[in-house]
């Protein structure tokens, strides 16, 4: 059995495909490409895989990781798999994990970077300040800056500081009323590189 780590993006209206639909979506594309996803044992078998912490509906993901277990794997399978994906969810890379000591995906994803822009013209500096203050207090802040009219944000504690939390912070601060007023992009998921000051994607 081959453990294959993939990176994918969710863009355009593809952002509205639910996290829970992704396993089937990837596994059907893999089957179209002639690959055989391994199935879990048990009462109701489903494809064996690990997804990153969920990207809420309506959030763009530029480089999301996941891992699949496949019956066979050659490097050229990547192109075949990529070409069988539906629009909106794009396979960016697929590489076999050969070292059995490689930790699980969940362990490797400890930080995320986001780009957050107000659709109603709220100043990015105000957004950055509100997010910075709240996240610093709960220990989630790695970096926060206003750049080109948007906030660039790096956080740790992904379950606790996901996009829903970010929206809640801005709502509490009176800077946004609902999701539709914010364009949120998760740019990377991975480990925080302190010296470079950025999240290194898996």
């Amino acid at each position, binding site marked *: 059995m081959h453990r294959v780590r993939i990176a994918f993006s969710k863009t355009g209206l593809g952002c509205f495909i639910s996290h829970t639909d992704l396993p089937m979506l990837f596994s059907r594309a893999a*089957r179209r490409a002639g690959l055989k996803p391994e199935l879990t044992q048990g009462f109701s078998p489903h494809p064996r895989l690990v997804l990153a912490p969920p990207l809420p509906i309506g959030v763009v993901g530029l480089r999301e990781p996941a891992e699949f277990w496949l019956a066979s794997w050659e490097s050229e399978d990547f192109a075949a798999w990529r070409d069988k994906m539906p629009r909106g969810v794009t396979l960016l890379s697929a590489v076999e994990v050969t070292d059995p000591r490689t930790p699980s995906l969940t362990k490797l994803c400890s930080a995320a970077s986001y780009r957050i822009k107000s659709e109603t013209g709220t100043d990015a500096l105000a957004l950055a300040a509100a997010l910075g203050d709240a996240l610093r207090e709960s220990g989630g802040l790695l970096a926060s800056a206003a750049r080109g009219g948007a906030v660039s944000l790096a956080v740790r504690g992904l379950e606790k500081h996901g996009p829903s939390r970010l929206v809640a912070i801005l709502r509490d601060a009176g800077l946004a009323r609902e999701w539709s007023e914010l364009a949120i992009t998760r740019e990377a998921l991975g480990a925080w590189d302190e010296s470079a000051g950025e999240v290194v994607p898996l």
Partner: protein
Amino acid sequence: MINEETTRRLWPLLTRVKRPGRYAGGEWGSLPVKEHADVRVCLAFPDTYEVGMSYLGYQILYALIRSLDCADAERAYCPWPDMESEMRRAGVPLGSLESGRPLRGFDVIGVTLQYELCHTNLLTMLDLGGVPLRAEDRGDGDPLVIGGGAGALAPAPLERFFDAFCAGDGEVILPGLLNVLAQMRGASRADKLEAAAKLPGVYVPGLSALPARRQIVTNLDDDFLHRTMITPSSGIIHDRAAVQVFRGCTRGCRFCQAGIIDRPVRERSARSVAEQLRELLSYTGWEEAGLLSLATCDWTPLPELLELLRPILEEANVKLSLPSLRMDGFSVELAAALGGMRRGGLTFAPEAGSARLRRVINKGVSEEDIETALDATFRHGWDRVKLYFMMGLPTETDADLEGITAIAEQAASLARRHKRRGEISVSVAGFVPKAHTPFQWEAQLGIAALRERGRMVKGRVRNRKISLAYHEPEQTYLEGVFARGGSELSAAIEEAWRRGARFDGWTECFDLERWAGVFRDLDIDADAYACRERGADEPLPWEVIDTGVTRAFLARERERAFTEQATPDCRGGDCSACGWERKGGCPQCIA
């Protein structure tokens, strides 16, 4: 492909609605629109995405229309009320999933009419798509709105909204119709409709010669077969690769509209089905496959197909979903031989509780068949059984209804004997007499009487292993009004829609009071459609369509129902002279 502008307009709406994935499109198999096409068709399904994507007919027609040089196909589904109100507030029109092109920008809107309680959704779609609701208000620049499916064979209640109806198999009607429309590109609406009215199987109200004759594909293997399917990116109801193995049904159940309007039986060969399924599985990546028909266990080459399929399914790790089972030992043995899919249980439809009433409706299932089927089910290790019945059937008495719980008890006791858990779930639906069937003249039972019977049956359940639910009779009533309705009902549909009727087939949306108010205000006697027995010589509104089965046959079958006489399955060679024996195309009669 949806452009950036459409994406930008839809985006904020989709952040606010339930299940936004149903509006996202982009699925595998949904192809980029053709740059040039003389006839752009939008296949509009008047229910949610999850229901519409489960409908094999549109998968076939999408592939068929795409295969024509002159035409292109795109799809649209009815937005749920939350999305509808967001669209209205933002001024976003209903467009196709493929390009976002608003419905008014198409040449043809094709609407399948599968269920009477979807009628108001059709109006939602037309209105949101910028198409005038009434055919008479449409101009040369507006699309032709064309209906198909079972509802097109009894179209009177919908005539106000449609320019034309297709009676019969789309594979034989659509290529000719779309070619004519392509050649007449730029012609006036009136000229196009006049030309369409001359085509076989096309019914243009007021223009077509009557009756319009239903058209059929005579050899399914040799006709158009879909080799691709659109594979959804989010969960739908029937989430599997599907192939139809035959059309029609020879059993002759007297309540069943499909069994009459899909005649004659046309079987496909095992080889052709296996080949098609192999291609579909490889194209779609689906992990489950289904064999569709009105009664797949009746399909002659089924054992041969299972042999051919075994290596294909094993190789691709694909499960075969169980077809609906006849209630006999053969079907259960077949299901057991299929292996896999063992979880869950089996579903049967005895339809009526007593052998007498089953003779009335010509459901040829004996008490012995029922016992054999249930016994085999639990012997093979299944734990659950689902049983479908109807109430309100012609001649029904309390004794027939008591038979329903008796069969459920019998199932529970057989489960005990085989030491299975034996969870028996029983569903009882109110009987709706349908057009073009032997019961088309019957009075439907009213709401109060149906509720009383439902309560009576439910009240008789004493066993904790049995759960019984009966359909709420209000929806059954409205279904009955439209199933045999006349053209004055168009006004009621339009008015109910204006008063907010949406998704009437969904219990959470349905409101009979609203409809009752409309009927009252428009002075329409809805009971006269649902609950009135028709005179034997009364002209019936749906006789504008000739399904191929004669009125004389239906009348004869009605007589036989009341004298409790069975009519044998004609697959065995016993022709019951339904009308197809004189039209050609019936393989039973040729043999």
